[in-house]
């Protein structure tokens, strides 16, 4: 079963959280940001081309115009493939681990898997980020030999930066799955 709810990100853009329950111990939570808008793309392209035309009018060198077209194309491809993240999703499988996927606008997907033995907890942490204090969800990793200490912190949803109301929903869903591993310990 799937359900989708609308929220706001930390900077005010609308995002959508989609929750799917695949089984009793497997849940997928996906946060989707807004698609690349035609108006911002046209604005950026027009600005670059106007600047190039201004340079051409000053310098009478037509290479400036071809260079501007080239830069716009290459810049758009790099932006779509490396920068613009459309959807970030979290797949929590109770006995196996947690999988974090980022999907870029060009279709590229980058995935990280963390096995359950390394996961200490999923918490909402607050930290200073660029003159603001933001809430963000993060996975606390532990060394299997030292269950008391936190060895690493993996922040989630870095590019969509949901606000606290969305994070609380994701936190509650994750905790329901993570609690099951305490009540039903596996023999490894």
């Amino acid at each position: 079963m799937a359900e989708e709810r609308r929220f706001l990100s930390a900077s005010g853009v609308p995002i959508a959280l989609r929750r799917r329950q695949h089984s009793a111990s497997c849940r997928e939570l996906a946060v989707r940001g807004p698609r690349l808008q035609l108006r911002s793309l046209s604005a950026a392209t027009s600005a670059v081309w106007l600047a190039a035309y201004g340079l051409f009018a000053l310098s009478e060198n037509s290479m400036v115009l071809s260079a501007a077209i080239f830069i716009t194309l290459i810049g758009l491809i790099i932006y779509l493939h490396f920068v613009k993240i459309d959807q970030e999703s979290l797949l929590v499988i109770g006995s196996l681990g947690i999988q974090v996927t980022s999907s870029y606008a060009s279709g590229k997907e980058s995935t990280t898997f963390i096995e359950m033995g390394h996961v200490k907890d999923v918490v909402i942490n607050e930290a200073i980020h660029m003159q603001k204090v933001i809430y963000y969800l993060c996975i606390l990793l532990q060394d299997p030999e030292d269950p008391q200490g936190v060895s690493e912190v993996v922040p989630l949803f870095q590019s969509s930066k949901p606000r606290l109301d969305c994070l609380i929903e994701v936190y509650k869903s994750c905790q329901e799955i993570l609690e099951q591993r305490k009540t039903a310990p596996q023999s490894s």
Partner: protein
Amino acid sequence: ENSPAPLPERAIYGFALFLGSWFGFILYLIWAYVPETWLFSLGLTYWPQKYWAVALPVYLLVAVGIGYVLLFGINMMSTAPLNSTHTITDNFAKKQQQKKFQEEAIPALRDIPISEVNRMFFLPGK
């Protein structure tokens, strides 16, 4: 012992600094404004170039302006990134000793682990 009270020695230091700073200021004005020929005729020849009378204050003011930007930048660089464990805990919290729980007494102050804090805030009814 050290105390911030006004003492006679401190009054004397303050007055000596006051006289010294006035003397330094008058000397700087003489060096900057009096023409070189007049100073030579008095026999005072070994002065730095008058260029420095303008350059040093300019250097100082530019350094103060850059200092604002530098301090801001140093602050931003020392802020722990989002993926560092310093946002979760630190050495004092790891090594704290647990005090025994006493009935009807206020519990001792301690650093509560973040998992427990989260459960209390965000999971209702626990």
